[in-house]
C-alpha cells in the first residue's frame, strides 16, 4: 500500500523530483570540489541573492501557470526601488515604513496595469509586458536620471544584513512569502482558477470561472511581489538605482520553466519553481567558485533551460499518445 502511494507521488511529481535531484548532485559536487563553498559567508551570499529572486519567481510562477507571462517584473521592481529610495532620502520620521509600503504599492499598480491591458484590451501577455517592461524602466530613469543613491537606513540595513535563528532575515522574508503564495495556489479558489485557466481557458470560461477577474488578480499579485522583491534588493545592496534588475528579465522565466511549469500553463507547482531558482543560483555560485567567467555561466544557464523544456515536451507527448 505504502509502496503504491510512493509510486503515485513519484509519478505526479516527476519534474519536481528531477530538478531536486539535480540540485542535490550539484550541491554535493560543489561541496566536495571547493573548500569555500560550505563556509557561512558563501552560503549566506547565495541566500541573499536567492531571497529577492525567490519572491520574483513566486509571482512569475503564478502567471505562467495561468498560461500567461510577465516580463515587466524587473522594471516594476526598479520603479519601486527608485521611488522608495527617494522617500528614504527625505529622512522623515517613519520613512522606511513608507518606503516599504510605497515599493509594494508601485509594484501592485504596475501589475494591475498589465492585468487590465491583457484582459480588457486583449493584447497577448508577451507583447503587453515587453511594452510595460520598457515603460516602467523608462519612468524609473526619468525620475532620477541615471543616478544611484547610497541607502543608509537602519531598518533596511537590519533587513539586509541581520539574521534570526542563524538564518538571514532576507531569507526568512522570502520563505514566508513563498510559502504563502504556494498555499494560495494550492488551497484557494483563486489558485485553482489559475490552474483551470492554464489548462483550458475556454472550458474554464464555460464552467463559470470569471476569467477577467482571475487574470487581473494574478498579474497584480505578480507586480506586488516584484515590488516586495525590490525592498529586499535595496536592503541587500544598500543602494537605489533605476537600473535595478536590468538584464535579468529572463532569469525568472527560466527558473519557472526549469521548475516544471508547462509553457502552455496548467501544470507545475511552486515547490518545483523554488527548486528551479535554487538550481540557477547554486549554479552561478559554483561557477564563480570555479573561476569561470559570467559568459560561461550564462551558457550553462541557457543549456539547462533548453534541456528542461525538451524534457517537458517529451513528457507532454507521452501524455498525448495515450
Amino acid at each position: 500500500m505504502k509502496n503504491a502511494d510512493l509510486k503515485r507521488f513519484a509519478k505526479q511529481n516527476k519534474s519536481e523530483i528531477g530538478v531536486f535531484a539535480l540540485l542535490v548532485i550539484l550541491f554535493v559536487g560543489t561541496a566536495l570540489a571547493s573548500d569555500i563553498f560550505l563556509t557561512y559567508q558563501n552560503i549566506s551570499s547565495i541566500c541573499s541573492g536567492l531571497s529577492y529572486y525567490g519572491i520574483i519567481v513566486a509571482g512569475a510562477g503564478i502567471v505562467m501557470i495561468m498560461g500567461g507571462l510577465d516580463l515587466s517584473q524587473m522594471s516594476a521592481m526598479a520603479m519601486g526601488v527608485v521611488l522608495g529610495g527617494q522617500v528614504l532620502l527625505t529622512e522623515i520620521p517613519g520613512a522606511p515604513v513608507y518606503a516599504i509600503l510605497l515599493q509594494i504599492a508601485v509594484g501592485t499598480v504596475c501589475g494591475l496595469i498589465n492585468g487590465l491591458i491583457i484582459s480588457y484590451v486583449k493584447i497577448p501577455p508577451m507583447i503587453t509586458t515587453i511594452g510595460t517592461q520598457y515603460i516602467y524602466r523608462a519612468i524609473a530613469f526619468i525620475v532620477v536620471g541615471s543616478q544611484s543613491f547610497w541607502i543608509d537606513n537602519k531598518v533596511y540595513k537590519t533587513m539586509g544584513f541581520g539574521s534570526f535563528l542563524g538564518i538571514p532575515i532576507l531569507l526568512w522574508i522570502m520563505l514566508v512569502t513563498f510559502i504563502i503564495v504556494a498555499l494560495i495556489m494550492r488551497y484557494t479558489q483563486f489558485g485553482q482558477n489559475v490552474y483551470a485557466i492554464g489548462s483550458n481557458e475556454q472550458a474554464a470560461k464555460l464552467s463559470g470561472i470569471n476569467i477577467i477577474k482571475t487574470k487581473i488578480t494574478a498579474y497584480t499579485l505578480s507586480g506586488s511581489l516584484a515590488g516586495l522583491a525590490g525592498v529586499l534588493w535595496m536592503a541587500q545592496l544598500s543602494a537605489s538605482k533605476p537600473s535595478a534588475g536590468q538584464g535579468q528579465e529572463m532569469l525568472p522565466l527560466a527558473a519557472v520553466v526549469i521548475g516544471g511549469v508547462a509553457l502552455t500553463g496548467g501544470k507545475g507547482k511552486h515547490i518545483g519553481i523554488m527548486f528551479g531558482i535554487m538550481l540557477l543560483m547554486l549554479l552561478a555560485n559554483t561557477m564563480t567558485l570555479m573561476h569561470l567567467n559570467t559568459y560561461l555561466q550564462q551558457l550553462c544557464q541557457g543549456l539547462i533551460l533548453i534541456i528542461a523544456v525538451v524534457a517537458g515536451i517529451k513528457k507532454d507527448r507521452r501524455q498525448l499518445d495515450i
Partner: protein
Amino acid sequence: MSIIESETKDMQEIILEMKNISKAFPGVQALNNVSLTLGKGEVLALIGENGAGKSTLMKILSGAYRQDSGEIFFKGEPLKDYSPAQAIAKGISIIYQELNDLPELTIASNIFTGNLPRKGPFIDYKQLKLDSIEAQKLVGLGDLHPFERVGELKVAQKQLIEIARSFVRDADIIVMDEPTATLTNTEIDVLYKIIREFTAKGGSVIIITHKLEEVFEIANRAMVLRDGCNVGEWAIKDVTKDQLVQAMVGRELNRDNALAPRDFGQVALKVENLSTDFLKDISFELREGEVLGLYGLVGSGCDVLTRCVYGAEKFDTGTVTLPGGCVGLSKVTPGKSLEAGVAFVPSERKMEGLLLDQSVRINTTLSSIKDFVKNFVISFSKERENAQQWVETLATKTPTIETEVNSLSGGNQQKVVFAKVMNTNPKVLILNEPTRGIDVGAKAEIYHIIEDFCKKGVAILLVSSEMPETMLLSDRIITLCDGAVTGEFVRGQYTQYDILHAVIGGDEK
C-alpha cells in the same frame, strides 16, 4: 442542358471508382461497404443527413483517412496508402467547408502554394503575376490584383481562389463540401458556371450539399448515404425531391424507448425575440421536466443559440428570462448563468468541457468549487468525497478520482462533464451533442442520466445533430434553418419526413 448530356455521359469512361469502402471509428461504423463511381465530366451530388458518412468518405478519397477495407481505382489504376499531398499531385482536389486559405498571403501565393514559379533559387514574381492572372480569369476573378491579400476578399472570392488553385494543379476531380452554404444567389450562379465549364472540359465534380434545389440545378447524378450505407443512386432526370428526402430519412424510427410521459411544471426558461446578426427573432418557452430539442443541419444556428442563452456569446436584442428573475441581456456571463441555475454541456467535450490534463476530482468540482471553500480554503476531503460519490452514482470507469481525464474513454469523460454540471444544481440544463463520439453502451447510460434529470424537474434544452437521438429524447422539437425557426413539433404528432422538410427550408413540397 441535362437530359441529353447525362445520357451521353452514361457512356463515358469512369474516372473514379470506390469499391466497398468500410471505415470504423471507436464505437461507430462510419462507413459500411459504400461504393461510388464517378464518370469523366460528371457532377455527382452526395447527399445525406448529418453523420451519414459523406465527409468520412471524402476524407478517405483525399488521403486524410485510410479505409479499413475496400479499394479505390483512379483512372483505372488502384490507389493505395496515399497522403493528401499525393492525392493532390494525382489530380484529386478537395475544397473543404472551412476554407484552407492563407489569409496573410497574396492571391497569387495562395493559388500557387507549393509550386511557385522560380528563377534559380528565387521566386519569379513577374511570372507569378502573369500566371496568377491567367488562373484568376478561369474563375472570373481576372480583375483582382494578384498581389492583393486574400484576407481582404469575400468568402465567395476565397472559394473561387481555392477552385483556381485546383485548376492550376490540373485536378481531374474536384470535391466541394457545401460550397454554396455561405454564398449569395449571384455568387452561386458564378460557381455553377465555373463548374459547367470545368466539366465541359472533362473534369469531374463531387458536390456535398444539404440543399436539394442545388442537386437538381447542377448535378447529373445523386447518391444518398444513410448511417454509413449506400441507400440509392439516381440520374437526376429519374428522381424527384420527395424520393430523395425519403431516401435520406429511411424507415420510421422505433419510438418504444422514448422517455416516459411526464407532467411538466412551471416555465423554467423563456427566450423572447432573441436576435444576433445571424439568429433571427427566436422565441420559445421551456418548462420544468421538459426536453426541448433544437434541430437543424450544420450551420443552422442551434449551437449558437444555446451559447447565447448561456451567456457564452453575446446577442443583440431579445431577453432570456428565468423564474428567479435573471434576465439575460448582453451582460450575462457563464458565471452568472450558473448562479441563476443554467448549466451548459458544450459540444466539444475536449476543447470546451474539460480540463484534460487535470484530475477527475478537479473537473468534477470545477463549476461549484465555491461550495467547497470554507474561510478561503478549499476542503480537499469534501471535494474528494463529492467526486467519489459522482463516480459511483454515474458508474464512471476511472482508476481513481485523481486520474487525469485525458486517459478516460469518451463516454466516461462525458460522465465527468455531467457530474460537473450536476454539482451546480441546475434548473435548466443545456446539452450540446451529449453523446458525440460515444459508443452505444455509454449512450444508453447517458440517456438514463438525462431521464433522471427530467424526473427531478430539470428543464432540458437539447441540441443533437443525430435526428434519431433528438426524436427519441425530445418532448418537443423546434427546427432551425439559417438562423430562423422553421417549425415546432410535439412528440407523437410528426414524422421524420416533416422534420427533414422543415430543416431544409420548410417551403414547397
